[in-house]
């Protein structure tokens, strides 16, 4: 029974694992292109399992930022996981103890969360752990291969692979921005702020991590104030 549940979780996670593999290949290639060792790039993916946070983290490592700046940036960029973990916790109910929760929390990415929430049967520990298996392997393995290939590939291919993560971010942002006006406003605000922090003299001296934090917090706060989400969406 437990084994069957685990396998069911693994099967459900496979499409996400395949997607992660291709994207993290880009992360690995980019990390070595910026001077990281292949092992360190792989270690980042194996311990973090998050795209946006790692990407920002890489920028900060290259820039030689302070540790507090790293922590603050991760807190803001990954704050959404707190909401997802809360929702997942509600759905899991009180049957599941603390120890399995410590493990399940590690795998709570946007996509795994979406799969877990879409489940109509009661969630079990083996299912949730199985769900995380291929995404974890895909994300870490893709980074490893990308990092190894990155040092072998010609410069022009490496440069091209460097936009892969940006492409993924655009693919995540554009469809909801097209459908929901409030998301479009959040995107537009963040865009304008980000340009100001890049091009306006004085403002462009603000470090990369802090400017991402300011753009994110300001745009999200203005939109939360202008367009509060309806109560039903809590469970979504």
């Amino acid at each position, binding site marked *: 029974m437990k084994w069957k549940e685990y396998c069911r979780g693994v099967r459900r996670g496979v499409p996400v694992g395949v997607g992660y593999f291709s994207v993290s290949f880009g992360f690995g290639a980019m990390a070595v292109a910026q001077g990281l060792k292949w092992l360190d790039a792989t270690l980042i993916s194996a311990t973090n399992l998050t795209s946006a946070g790692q990407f920002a983290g890489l920028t900060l490592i290259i820039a030689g930022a302070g540790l507090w700046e790293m922590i603050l940036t991760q807190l803001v960029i990954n704050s959404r996981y*707190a*909401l997802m973990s809360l929702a997942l916790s509600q759905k899991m109910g009180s049957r599941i103890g603390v120890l399995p929760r410590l493990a399940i929390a590690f795998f709570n990415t946007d996509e795994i969360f979406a799969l877990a929430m879409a489940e109509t049967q009661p969630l079990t520990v083996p299912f949730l752990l199985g769900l995380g298996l291929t995404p974890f392997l895909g994300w870490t393995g893709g980074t490893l291969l990308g990092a190894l290939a990155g040092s072998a590939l010609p410069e022009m291919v490496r440069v091209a692979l460097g936009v892969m993560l940006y492409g993924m971010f655009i693919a995540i942002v554009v*469809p909801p921005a097209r459908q929901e006006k409030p998301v479009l406003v959040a995107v537009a605000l963040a865009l304008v702020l980000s340009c100001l922090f890049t091009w306006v003299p004085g403002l462009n001296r603000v470090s990369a991590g802090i400017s991402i934090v300011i753009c994110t917090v300001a745009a999200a706060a203005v939109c939360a104030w202008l367009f509060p989400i309806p109560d039903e969406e809590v469970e979504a």
Partner: protein
Amino acid sequence: MSIYAYIAAMALTTYLIRVLPLTVFRKPIKSRFVRSFLHYVPYACLTAMTFPAILYSTESVISGLGALIVAVVLAFFGKSLLTVSLASCVTVFLLERIISLI
């Protein structure tokens, strides 16, 4: 600073954000503002990270801009994540070959 200090800080912060609501603070967030704020965070954050940084991520601003336009158009028409990412890579590769010929 050692890269392992950075990696540890990143991993620990990210894990704590995920694990605390699953173990210690399990009550739903009542504040509508906070829930709305967290709903908009990913979009604002990904946008701020992508633009204008994508313009400076390649050899020339033109190829970065080309990748951006291709990705936005494909994403607008609902193409998959993989299609959009690969198309932006191919765009950069082709544009830079063309630029190097000029």
